[in-house]
């Protein structure tokens, strides 16, 4: 498998230029460029309907691209899909296990389809079931598994062929917090084995936790790409938010603090601030001396949420979103 990877591209696990896809006259992907170094975790972040799943489907050879080019593990996805398939493992958004047979039978099915010798297949199946905490349920039909167990079985099946590149489409959607943390742990372990992970998520926290690089997909286009740190630096810094219940106090504060951004509807002010103790104290001192009392004071440091909402236009009702951030 990896031996067939061309030496020139062996540092890049996935690359794409101008990927397009439309269904009917609806454009889902409108020119996607990607470059993912081998051995890294790449997160494709985006709201529902942004086209994340379509990107995964195209790169994993499930559907054909409407335009553009892509190489996965050094192989052209259109010209040599079978070579791509032998290098990748895919865990889709919807459970890809056979519910009618047991977890163990699912694993052995994968071993057979990877043409492993019987004893080796059995050993790998047992090891993976053990590693994903499924040994006890191995003899039960997969349809009786909980959501988290199904997802673990799904990933275990993906790992049977020892893929070098793994696609995970929303691996934690619909999981309870505990299963979600288990899944994160699993993904981190994969990377330490040198595997490239391409994951999609709508959770910013998840991208922040796991990914070396993040691309924000919005409306079929990559709105931004970089490390989580780089992306956070792209939006204006933090701020302090003051909320009032008394309109008179709000107006007094607003006229005095002319650097603040006003939100007249919510009776809230946003003052740019890094949130340091000194800055906060001077702000509080000023409020005291002016005789203004805010009902609520919150300190806000930028996170991927800000990046996300800034880049995707965000929900119009996000209260702490400074207007100047919206492009």
């Amino acid at each position, binding site marked *: 498998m990896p031996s067939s990877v061309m030496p020139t591209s062996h540092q890049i696990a996935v690359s794409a230029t101008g990927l397009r896809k439309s269904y009917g006259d609806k454009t889902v992907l409108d020119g996607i460029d990607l470059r993912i170094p081998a051995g890294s975790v790449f997160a494709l972040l985006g709201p529902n309907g942004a086209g994340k799943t379509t990107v995964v489907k195209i790169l*994993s*050879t*499930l*559907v*054909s691209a409407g335009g553009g080019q892509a190489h996965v593990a050094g192989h052209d996805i259109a010209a040599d899909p*079978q*070579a791509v*398939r*032998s290098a*990748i493992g*895919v865990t*889709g958004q*919807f*459970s*890809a*296990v*056979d*519910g*009618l*047979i047991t977890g163990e*039978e699912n694993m052995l*099915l994968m071993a*057979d*389809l*990877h*043409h492993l010798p019987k004893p080796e297949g059995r050993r790998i199946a047992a090891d993976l079931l053990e590693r994903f905490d499924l040994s006890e349920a191995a003899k039960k*039909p997969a349809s009786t598994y909980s959501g988290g167990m199904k997802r673990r079985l799904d990933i275990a*099946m993906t790992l049977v*062929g020892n893929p070098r590149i793994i696609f995970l489409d929303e691996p934690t959607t619909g999981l309870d917090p505990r299963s979600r943390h288990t899944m994160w742990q699993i993904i981190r372990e994969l990377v330490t084995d040198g595997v490239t992970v391409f994951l999609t998520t709508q959770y910013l926290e998840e991208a922040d936790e796991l990914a070396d690089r993040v691309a924000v997909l919005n409306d079929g286009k990559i709105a931004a790409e970089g490390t989580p740190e780089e992306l956070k630096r792209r939006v204006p810094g933090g701020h302090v938010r003051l909320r009032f219940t008394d309109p008179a106090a709000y107006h007094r504060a607003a006229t005095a603090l002319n650097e603040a951004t006003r939100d007249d509807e919510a009776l809230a002010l946003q003052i740019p601030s890094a949130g340091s103790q000194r800055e906060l104290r001077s702000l509080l001192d000023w409020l005291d001396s002016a005789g203004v009392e805010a009902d609520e004071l919150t300190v806000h440091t930028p996170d991927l949420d800000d990046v996300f909402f800034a880049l995707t236009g965000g929900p119009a009702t996000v209260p702490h979103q400074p207007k100047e951030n919206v492009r």
Partner: protein
Amino acid sequence: MSPSLAVRDSNTMLRRNLLHARRYPSLTLNLLLTPIVLLLLFVYVFGDVMSAGMGGGGGADRSAYIAYVVPGILMMTIGGTVVGTAVSVSNDMTEGIIARFRTMAIHRGSVLIGHVVGSVLQCIASVVLVGAVAVAIGFRSTDATALEWLAALGLLALVALALTWIAVGMGMISPNAEAASNNALPLVVLPLISSAFVPVEAMPGWFQPIAEYQPFTPAIETLRGLLLGTEIGYNGWLAVAWCLALSALGYTWSKSTFNRDPK
């Protein structure tokens, strides 16, 4: 991909389908019930009238009608069994595991081949079971030689293959199990309006073409000829031609549907 890997993957898929059938036998058994009930109904309830109507003249002697109806019932068994194939193909296609198969470096056709071979094997098993019931209630082949028995089995397998490919195509285009079962209904209804239960000549004139120009009638007449020594005539070639045409049609249809981009 080398042919040996194609065989290996298809074999893996076949084992998966047989495992399904073994784990969940209710679908197969339900479908078996229809031909057995019809066989008993036509022999024990309508049998006397039918025998009399056929000019057997014996009145109480049902054996003539048993002999007449069994070949049709066997063909109907195949029609019923492949309805199950359409349902399980449709179920399978809505499962996420098919997407997984499509992203694996396996022989692409193995998914369908597994279904087809599994279905033909199930058809043969069903035919043997229904045949055993027929023998138990008094069906006897009159003068079939070993070669004719072999030809009869070959014909049944060929019909099973043809109807299976059609059923696979029907399963592929059905969004769910109910739709698949409805779409495959003609495969159960067609034998009813063939020469399975009454000779075509006994039907009303306007209806005779419908019974005559459909795949089940020549297949049933050929089976009758092989097992009971009646005149086969050109029915043998007609049956084989129907089977080959239906197989080719079902194969092309299923394959192009499977190769289409999934939603």
